[in-house]
């Protein structure tokens, strides 16, 4: 799992690469969460994400809850598998996916 960060003012973009599985989901969540102070817009770029486990979904759910308080969050470049997952778990209903 690799995590790349691009920051521009109150906007923050994370590029996630590899798998968000049970073993690393919590670390990813913490790594992103640590950067969120004062951020108004969070963008998660899932271009190179192979898959995301339910633990990874939890992380995204928590991030979404937090960002709703302080701004907005969107997920971009979602591949088919991940999109299926978002759909089947109902995440598409509250997430902004582009």
């Amino acid at each position, binding site marked *: 799992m690799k995590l790349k960060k691009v920051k521009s003012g109150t906007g923050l973009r994370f590029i996630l690469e590899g*798998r968000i*599985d*049970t*073993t690393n989901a919590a670390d990813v969540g913490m790594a992103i969460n640590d950067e969120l102070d004062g951020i108004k817009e969070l963008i998660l770029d899932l271009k190179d994400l*192979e*898959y*995301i*486990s*339910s*633990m990874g*979904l*939890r992380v995204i*759910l*928590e991030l*979404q*809850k937090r960002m*709703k308080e302080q701004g907005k969050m969107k997920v971009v470049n979602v591949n*088919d*598998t991940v999109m*299926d*997952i978002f759909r*089947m*778990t*109902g*995440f598409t*209903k*509250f997430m902004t996916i582009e």
Partner: protein
Amino acid sequence: MLKTIKSRIIVFTLIILFILSGASIFLLKLSYEHNKELEIRALGFAISYYSEVLNKRIGQFEENVVDMTIMGETFYYSGSDRKKSTLEALLYENFKKDQTSQGGGIFFEPYVVKKNQKFFSSYAYESDNGVLIDNGFNNEVHSYFKKSWYKELKEEFAKGKMVAWSTPYVDDVGTKSLMITAGSPLYTYKHELLGIATTDWVLDDIIIFLKAIKPGENSFIVFADLTHDFIIAVDKNGIDGKSYIGKPLSSVEWYNSSLKNEDEFIYQDTAYIFFDKKLENNMILIMGVPRNEFLREINHRTNYMILMLIFSCLFLTLIIYIALYVYVNKPIDYMKRKAEEIGKGSLNVKMEIKSPKEFADLSSSFNQMTDNLKDYISKAEKANYEKEQIETELKIAKTIQESSLPNVFPPYPERCEFDIYAFMETAHDVGGDFYDFFFIDEFHFVFLIADISGKGAPAALFMMSTKTMMENISHAGYSVDKIINTLNQEICKNNKQGLFVTIFCGILDTRDGIISYVNAGHNPPIIKTQKETYYLEAESNVILGAFDDVMYKKGEIKLNKDDAIILYTDGMTEATNSDKEFYGEEKLLASVKNADFKNNLKRASFEVKNKLKSFTRESEVADDITFLALKYLGNDTKRRKLILPPDIKYLNVLLNSFETILLRNRTEKSITEKVNIVIDEIFSNIVKYAQLKEEDDIISELKVGKNEIILTFTDSGIPYDPLKHEDADIDLPLEERELGGLGILMVKNMSDEIRYKREDDRNILQIKFRIP
């Protein structure tokens, strides 16, 4: 209370003093009794003496009165003129001569001297002005015939007595004193009474005499006449006793009571010692001496001695006490203080006692002891430090040794052709056994077990170098005999200590299960197939390190699917129990036979070990115990089975291993991703919720078929059917979404079929993915 030496010695001394005092008091009492007897005897002598004096006095009176009768009779017969003046002159001469009596006279019967004269008497007595003649009796008024003494004497004479004494009376004529009178009759030749002669003894005179002989102030003396039973004189404590005079002796109370006890009586609460002495004329001298007074002197003396005794005892006790304090207590206290200091760890404390000698000796022994102790402690500390250092080093060495052996299982989780498990327990801190395994190329897997001769650090070092050499010389393409030959030569090169190695080394070809091996003096391995369990009759070569020119020969055996080869060191077969019995090859073989190597290699290995442990029990393990089991799983490219500990860190092993198979079978990427997600969800779910123990396993199996992919998970955890799990509600808005329940939802959505069953206390979950 009597715990200290001091109190014991003091008590002991007091007991001795008590005994001595008892003896002394006994002796005192003896001497007291003796003294008392002496005193009594002395008083007896005194009274005898004084009674003699009295006797003499009485005798004098009586002699004198007899003389006077002769005088009177002579006067009577002197002629007819019988002048009164002649009689008077005679009396005058007599009393001038006789100093004994106060007075006396000659009294004639009526009309015997002169026919016309009724009264004829003459009386003389001593006064301050010399001897006076008194004729006062010769008239009717003072008629001597009427006097008591005259009558009494005459009565006595009538009985034939020649001398008699009157009762006391007061002389109203001459001396006017209280007196008694001794008398003697005057007779004619025909024994007709002519008259009487008298001498008087004034009682005052007697009392003075009695007073003179009285032994003490409170003593009293009674002088009595037994003939008439009357008391003549008394001297008693302040009373002159006149009231007693003339009374019968029986009127004296104490005299009566004294008759009951011969030498003692009680009168008015006072004890008296009693003496009496009869005199010649039936008079008696009685004396009572108060016991206290009489014994005062002796008592004084005795009391003084008792006082001296008590004082000596106290003084002696004090001296002993002081001596004990100075010679025993002080040194002991001193030593105690010093010993306590030593006890607290100050070994530099010195005892300095010069005397008494015993304590000086003891203190020098003590000093010697502390010196020795100090010496010993410093040596011990040094030794201990060195020992600790060695121990620490050995512990580090052990850790290094242990970590040098591959000890993470499964070591190649992604390889599904075989399963391997091994352990080593060292008897000493570091051991001479080792096992090892590694791939020399993709398909050739080297595994070996070895036992270095000797034990401890040298063996461990030799083991390390052997292990390193083995790794260095094992190159791809090498056959096992080539490797062992090279190893032997390397060992021989540097083997100055003459250590040697037994080794069993095999190379598994993972493609077909063929093992080529060399056994250099090692125990034969056990082969366990589905049908039988037996010792491999491997050709046994000579040990390594003995001869550098030996050529080792290899053997070969083919393992079929699920067959296992078990290697061990002689620490297992030669382990002994408390009865010194060997565990032996039979028991080992039986334990391997009974263990389930097919299903779970690790658990089966533990079973073999536990069998051994239950045999040896508490007895100390003499040698290293090393064990290695290798199971061939076959080379199936469509199947893969992984047995992993319930730890999430193995998730990636599982994912990578199964992904390899999927890739080999050219499975579509989208399906692979789905399979991965399902593996992730299920495996992590089992790890989290199945409540497995550390030694339990999760068995994951992948089967790639023509039209489907089957994923099976087996665990021995608590019953859990994921199908019964309620799905998360995916229609809830963000704020109400819970974190759980998504995993199972995803598994359900991504797979095409899920089956759960509970069998043999195990959860078996089978998931199918269709291949379009």
